[in-house]
């Protein structure tokens, strides 16, 4: 199996302001493949919690449109995950 690549995958940070917004994230998790970084899983998402999740390039447009449409506040922590994976090795071998 070739190693998985994460080209142009994104990590979103969303702060649901209330139960309604928390449920929007949970619903998005049902129809999109979201890898929750914090909290560990969709069922933990609650109002006023910082929520970080990874999403593929393709689905990120759907996610962004849904968040914009619902006027939810979010930021993109990582724009290209594969790049960050390669950049984490930033110390030369002694």
């Amino acid at each position: 199996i070739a190693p998985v690549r994460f080209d142009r995958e994104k990590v979103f940070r969303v702060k649901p302001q209330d139960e309604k917004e928390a449920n929007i994230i949970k619903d998005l998790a049902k129809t999109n493949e979201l890898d929750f970084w914090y909290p560990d899983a969709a069922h933990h998402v609650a109002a006023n919690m910082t929520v970080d999740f990874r999403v593929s390039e393709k689905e990120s447009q759907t996610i962004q449109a849904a968040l914009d449409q619902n006027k939810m506040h979010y930021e993109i922590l990582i724009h290209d995950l594969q790049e960050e994976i390669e950049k984490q090795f930033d110390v030369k071998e002694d």
Partner: protein
Amino acid sequence: SPDRHSYAKYKNWEKIVAWTEKMVNKHPEMVSRIKIGSTAEDNPLYVLKIGKEDERRKSVFMDCGIHAREWISPAFCQWFVYQATKTYGKNKIMTKLLDKMNFYVLPVFNVDGYIWSWTKNRMWRKNRSKNQNSKCIGTDLNRNFNASWDSFPPTGNPCDETYRGQAPESEKETKAVTAFIRSHLKSIKVYITFHSYSQVLLFPYGYTSKLPPNHEDLDKVAKISTNALSTRYETRYVYGPIESTMYRTSGSSLDWAYDLGIKHTFAFELRDKGKFGFLLPESQIKQTCKETMLAVKFIAKYILKNTS
């Protein structure tokens, strides 16, 4: 030299195994390696025992790498062993701790998952055991402990990242660790498990909002150790019970160890707070380890002084 082990870089499993052998060879009077079991894919589970032979002394059990993608965690366990052996006889606190206590360090708990995160999928979290009647692989080892295992939240789907396994301690890795801790229960006074990320220091419970009987003591230790941590680089940690500080979780090693009778159990969620998340750059490894050492040394010192 080629076999030099750089603590400022992430190491794959093969290099960590070689490092364990090197530490035993270099410090035979202080370091011994115990094979406590094997994984779903038959990799060995090694615990390094740091300290003198006497098994009756108070001891600390620390595990790293229960979640495969949290690479800073195994990096800290390696750093701890390195610092303990290097500063014994030089640093007053470490010398006193090692003269009176033993440390059991499990550098990588989820070996199969860690290997997979290096070779196939950097974002992998669970172990690599096969699940009956499902194409989905893996169990979240930190949901597989017998601590309110099947209560809320629902973690019964093998395809979930937080799948709890078929039964409590269904996983070989979990069984190996619980068997070791049970057999050393008389001496183990504190259990510490290292995760990332969030910069949080947690104590029981996760499976209930009920506070443990000694929560004031746990809170005090967490407060002082996070203060000690912040003295180095002003890294701010939040601390508190899992359930109210993060969210409700069942089947965690922390709650299990506490209910088994180890009345001081802590979980570190190491750097950072999300800028890099699981992909903390190597250039932050040393700082993260140095500051965390201050907290761990305080906890050990406190336990040495305040437990019977």
